[in-house]
């Protein structure tokens, strides 16, 4: 089982020979992506973007492509369903139409598997245009080997949240899964899209996910991303967002699962007056590693960005947050605020936080700050003095710290189920 970094990468490059036939425009992209992946290899730990994140646990496995998936029953995924949503389900990267339910999608909303839409000009116009694979081997691998994905196209106001559920199953050999999503919000449209990565059992899989989001003029998107894969899994995610004039992009991303996880989220304010709201939470324990890299480019005037990222690390876990905000030369009147708040629950846990501001014009208002703390001793004593055990009190305070982010998800059913599973999980850990 124990392999080397080189062997692991070679195995990934073999991919899946039976990768589906595709339109000619995609074939060219896939070929270029493979060449790029070969040239890049895994990022080195000396790479500035990766220096805090130890990928070595990933290199120990041979990840095999998935060419067929075990059929799941609705009961297998029942716990993850969100009532009232339009649901697209992928199992180990393959589209599962029998588990999907698009009856709630409503007018003006297209929710389909990407493979079905390769002839759609709107797909061709945006696919691989926002996440560049030129400098990132993981994105290149995804672009070459993705089996299928989600295409969400919204014009008007979406009646129901769109739930894209990616289920990783436990397989005999470690599997490489390539979730892919493209979300296009037409001018003045509004929607909530939930990307949800879940694991069944304690399988070893590498979910290498790429998401591209396009907001046209005055579009508004609530983008929720939940990563709750198995604690033995690996998750590398990349999301790029292009925000046009007057649009409002709100992201709430949660990282609970995986042995090693990473999210690189890049939002570019392309048009005047666009607003960007980024909420993030990593809640990890044991030997988990969760890395969140965000970058906001204010490339047009009078943009606004507000970011709150929280990390909670227990056990010997390691959380990383790097948040870069770049205000470009012409982006006058930019208003940006970034806050990184972190909670260490154990003496062996570790949090690296790195806010970075790069400002290239004078007419801006930018604030940022970072704090790392422990459970407040006075609050703990207060709760004990009201009869709560130390464990209960600590859990309540941890939950309260996390709830500030979770409560920002505009889907009450999901907020409730996440709150419940989180508490249950922690109760189990402490039992």
């Amino acid at each position, binding site marked *: 089982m124990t392999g080397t970094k080189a062997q692991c990468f070679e195995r990934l490059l073999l991919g899946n020979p039976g990768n589906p036939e595709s339109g000619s425009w995609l074939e060219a992209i896939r070929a270029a992506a493979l060449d790029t992946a070969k040239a890049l290899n895994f990022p080195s730990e000396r790479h500035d973007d990766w220096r805090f994140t130890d990928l070595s646990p990933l290199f120990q496995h041979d990840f095999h492509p998935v060419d067929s998936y075990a059929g799941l029953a609705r009961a297998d995924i029942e716990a993850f369903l969100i009532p009232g949503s339009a649901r697209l389900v992928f199992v180990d990267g393959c589209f599962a139409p029998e588990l999907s339910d698009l009856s709630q999608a409503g007018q003006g909303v297209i929710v389909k598997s990407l493979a079905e839409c390769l002839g759609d000009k709107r797909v061709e116009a945006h696919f691989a245009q926002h996440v560049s694979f030129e400098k990132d081997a993981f994105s290149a691998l995804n672009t070459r080997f993705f089996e299928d994905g989600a295409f969400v196209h919204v014009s008007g106001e979406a009646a129901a949240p769109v739930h894209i559920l990616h289920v990783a199953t436990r397989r005999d050999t470690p599997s490489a899964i390539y979730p892919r999503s493209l979300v296009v919000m037409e001018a003045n449209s509004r929607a909530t899209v939930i990307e949800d990565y879940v694991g069944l059992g304690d399988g070893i899989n590498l979910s290498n996910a790429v998401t591209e989001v396009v907001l046209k003029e005055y579009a508004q998107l609530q983008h929720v991303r939940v990563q709750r894969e198995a604690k033995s899994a690996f998750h590398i995610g990349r999301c790029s967002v292009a925000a046009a004039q007057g649009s409002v992009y709100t992201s709430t991303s949660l990282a609970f699962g995986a042995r090693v996880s990473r999210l690189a989220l890049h939002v570019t304010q392309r048009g005047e007056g666009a607003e960007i709201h980024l909420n993030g939470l990593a809640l990890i324990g044991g030997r988990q590693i969760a890395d969140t890299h965000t970058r906001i480019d204010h490339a047009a005037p009078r943009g606004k960005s507000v970011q709150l990222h929280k990390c909670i690390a227990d056990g010997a876990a390691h959380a990383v947050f790097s948040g870069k905000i770049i205000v470009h030369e012409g982006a006058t009147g930019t208003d940006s605020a970034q806050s990184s708040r972190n909670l260490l629950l154990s003496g062996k846990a570790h949090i690296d936080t790195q806010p970075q501001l790069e400002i290239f014009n004078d007419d801006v208002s930018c604030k940022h700050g970072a704090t790392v703390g422990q459970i407040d001793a006075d609050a703990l004593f207060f709760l004990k*003095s009201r009869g709560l055990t130390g464990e209960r009190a600590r859990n309540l305070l941890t939950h309260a710290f996390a709830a500030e982010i979770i409560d920002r998800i505009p889907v009450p059913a999901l907020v409730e189920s996440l709150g419940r599973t989180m508490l249950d999980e922690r109760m189990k850990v402490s039992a």
Partner: protein
Amino acid sequence: MISKNSKVLLEVRNLKAAVDGIEILKGVDLTVRAGEVHAIMGINGSGKSTFSKVLTGHPDYTVTGGTALFEGRDLFELEPEQRARAGLFLAFQYPVEIPGVSNSALLRLAYNTLQTERGLEELDPLEFDDLVQEKLKVVEMDPSFLGRSVNEGFSGGEKKRNEILQMAVLEPRLAILDETDSGLDIDALRIVANGVNSLLTPDNAVVMVTHYQRLLNYIVPDYVHVMDGGRIVRTGGKELALELEERGYDWLRVAA
């Protein structure tokens, strides 16, 4: 109300305690019986707040000598939460803010923890709401306070009233009120005092820790103790408080 036959709730003998290796309490003796109201007065640094924190188990303080029995049980064998479940309550001098935990959730969690301890049924949110609506009247608090995070954005007076609300819900045998009067305007003081008075029964007791006499105009003590240099140096009736108001503390101070 003094009745020599009533049950002893708290018996403290020669209590010594230190913080950061410095001895603050140097031998405190105090007996509190059911139905009694005690006031512990003293200047800043006399040890009176330390005394309340040591009794409730604050982790910053180390007991270095003496004993404290609560209804016959050794307090220092109990964790802070066990002391609370046994019926000991501290109203904090500086109530903490807990963003993200609603007042109603905290009250229900604490109440149900005690119910379980007493072998009684837990209340569901609806049943608990009926109970807490009644308790709100004790401190004239608006129901909207229940939905807010514990003490977050509360004024000084609202925080102190919130402490008494917790006391009303938990119905402790012995409540220690640590400088509950500090920072209160006269209306808030009256509300807090009325609340405490309405909670007094022949079966419970209150120990007020205070610097000033004015709270004692509203909650009339059976005993007034003066603390100085980590000891109780004088015990009297309520008239002692008036004398302190007139003469200050200097005449009672122990020679250094």
